[in-house]
């Protein structure tokens, strides 16, 4: 094999390229058989166009085009050959024979040098498996010599998937056609694009979930640590941690993302953008969680601290065995709202090129010129946020029932209002300066 390859290389280097040695294959294309795409689906009817120019020193009496293995002919398949002299169509074709392997064109009289041969094959189905396919064949010139054609430029074929099959099926449905005749429905709720977007955006959904599923757990210990600092005995520690919390909560996440993504490169620090996205989200969320945790801890009755102390437990034991376990149940609803907010905020990372749901949707919208992928993306977001919202509500009910009104956190009405907006305050208890305005 290697020897042959080397020989071929040597030959190709030593023999000068033959100028106009025989017919030049100029073009081979297949028309897209997708509704709103530009790809060619294998196994589906398409139209293949092949063009070749007769060489300067010969005339051609017969042309045979051979199709790639696996080609089939759909109903109504036909081939048409044309001889063109510039823009002028010449009457030269005598006969066109088409089968699944080849198209054979015979000419009434030899086709002269320099003329263009165009063959169009209708309702031909290229192989179903995806790949690049060329059209080969041969021709006979007037000396009776049969010369092989150089393989045509490849035609890229993608394989038929369930989604494409459904899309094609939808194309033919009368109800889809009348549905799509309404501009609003076609632009926002295009059935074919819904079908195409769901699997396509699934990847984006996973990317977004990944960001928040790594970022949020990372934010929890940071937030807990900061909440401890916020309650530290030393004033300076409280002060520094409050600066952290207030700056993060007082500036847009969007701005923080820009500073991180465009600022770090200036310092010569390059971090994978997905990872950096996670870090920025975690840092942002930690400030909100710190306030949620702090308010949760401070909402624990002081009798709990006193009982623990009176039993000889130190501050750390009290915190981890008595206070935090009680705090957890109280902060779960607000922390979950924070999770929802963070999940939605992953979309901001699209602006700096992190692969996530919005990026996937945007690129689909760009390639289809249709809003439907955004609607599907919305569906993916809701897939996470709606069940979580429900869970919060039921958890709050259970909590209220279990602890009674005296120790339950603040009214759920307050929190619900915040659920779909960046929170003004995530504090489960009143009287804590957990407001959005940094001091």
């Amino acid at each position: 094999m290697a020897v042959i390859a080397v020989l071929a290389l040597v030959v190709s280097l030593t023999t000068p390229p033959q100028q106009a040695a025989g017919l030049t294959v100029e073009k081979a294309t297949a028309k897209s058989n997708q509704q709103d795409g530009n790809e060619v689906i294998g196994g589906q009817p398409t139209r293949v166009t092949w063009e070749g120019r007769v060489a300067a020193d010969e005339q051609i009496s017969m042309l045979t085009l051979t199709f790639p293995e696996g080609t089939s002919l759909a109903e109504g398949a036909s081939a048409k050959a044309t001889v063109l002299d510039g823009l002028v169509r010449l009457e030269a074709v005598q006969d066109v024979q088409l089968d699944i392997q080849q198209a054979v064109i015979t000419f009434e009289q030899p086709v002269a040098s320099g003329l263009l041969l165009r063959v169009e094959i209708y309702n031909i189905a290229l192989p179903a498996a995806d790949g690049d396919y060329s059209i080969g064949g041969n021709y006979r010139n007037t000396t009776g010599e049969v010369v092989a054609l150089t393989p045509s430029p490849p035609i890229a074929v993608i394989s038929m998937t369930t989604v494409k099959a459904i899309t094609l099926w939808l194309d033919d449905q009368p109800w889809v056609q009348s549905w799509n005749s309404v501009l609003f429905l076609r632009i926002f709720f295009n059935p074919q694009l819904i079908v195409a977007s769901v699997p396509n955006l699934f990847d984006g959904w996973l990317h977004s979930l990944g960001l928040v599923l790594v970022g949020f757990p990372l934010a929890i210990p940071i937030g807990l640590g900061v909440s401890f600092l916020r309650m530290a005995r030393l004033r300076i520690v409280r002060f520094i941690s409050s600066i952290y919390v207030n700056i993060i909560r007082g500036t847009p996440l969007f701005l923080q993302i820009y500073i991180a993504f465009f600022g770090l490169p200036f310092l010569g620090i390059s971090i994978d953008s997905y990872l950096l996205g996670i870090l920025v989200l975690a840092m942002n969320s930690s400030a909100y969680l710190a306030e949620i945790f702090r308010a949760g801890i401070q909402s624990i009755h002081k009798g709990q601290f006193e009982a623990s102390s009176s039993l000889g437990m130190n501050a750390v034991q009290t915190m981890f065995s008595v206070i935090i376990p009680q705090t957890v149940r109280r902060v779960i609803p607000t922390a979950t709202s924070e999770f929802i907010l963070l999940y939605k905020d992953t979309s901001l990372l699209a602006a700096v090129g992190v692969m996530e749901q919005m990026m996937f949707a945007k690129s689909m919208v760009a390639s289809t010129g249709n809003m439907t992928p955004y609607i599907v993306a919305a569906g993916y977001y809701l897939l996470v946020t709606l069940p979580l919202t429900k869970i919060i509500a039921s958890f709050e009910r259970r909590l209220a029932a279990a602890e009674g009104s005296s120790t339950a956190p603040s009214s759920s009405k307050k929190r619900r209002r915040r659920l779909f907006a960046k929170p003004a305050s995530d504090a489960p208890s009143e009287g804590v300066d957990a407001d959005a305005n940094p001091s």
Partner: protein
Amino acid sequence: MPTLREQPQAVVRIEQLHKYFGSLEVLKGVDMEVDRGEVVVILGPSGSGKSTLLRCINLLEKPTSGDIWFEDTRITDPATDINKIREHVGMVFQSFNLFPHLSAKKNVMLAQRKVLKRSKEEAERIAIEQLDKVGLSDRVDYMPAQLSGGQQQRVAIARALAMDPHVMLFDEATSALDPELVRGVLDVMRELARGGMTMIVVTHEMGFANEVADRAVFMDGGVIVEQGRPEDVFGNPTHERTRDFLGHIS
């Protein structure tokens, strides 16, 4: 009673204790001594400083001046490891303060495990034993929210007793209870007193005080106004303020 102060069996000794909250002087020089096995009942009108005095004994409140000894240790010394002292000073609060996320048994086990470093098995055995003593052997796995106030308070007593305290402080242990639940808690306290536990009890239960106390202390305005055997203090108070107070509550 300065002569008693040097006696070794004193469990708690308080000297010239002053406590301010801001500019408000709540304790104005309290001297008190509680011997081993003694049951002292503290009475007095609201705001007289009874709770504050009790809370100073295990440093839940920091005394402004004066000294408190627990056995041989001067706990008002800043170098004292206060958690070590608190291990041996049991406290029962008016509001129970059970850990709501833990079952009765786990409430009693927690500090045994964390502070005394007892094994799980030992802590559990002692928890069940103590809960049995306060009459709750059938409630060991109940959550606090599933228990009545009286039951919760008895769990709190068991929780303190499991630490093998040298003295028990009760701050109006029955005041938050419905009248029908008071008896059960008082029965437990009475049993405890009979068993020889050193106790300092703030209460308004005169019958209980009369029956159980070795000594009654009447406080008013941040000072001890009068103290002595309960039958003397109750039956024949020497001070006008004591008479007034007793007249009001009985």
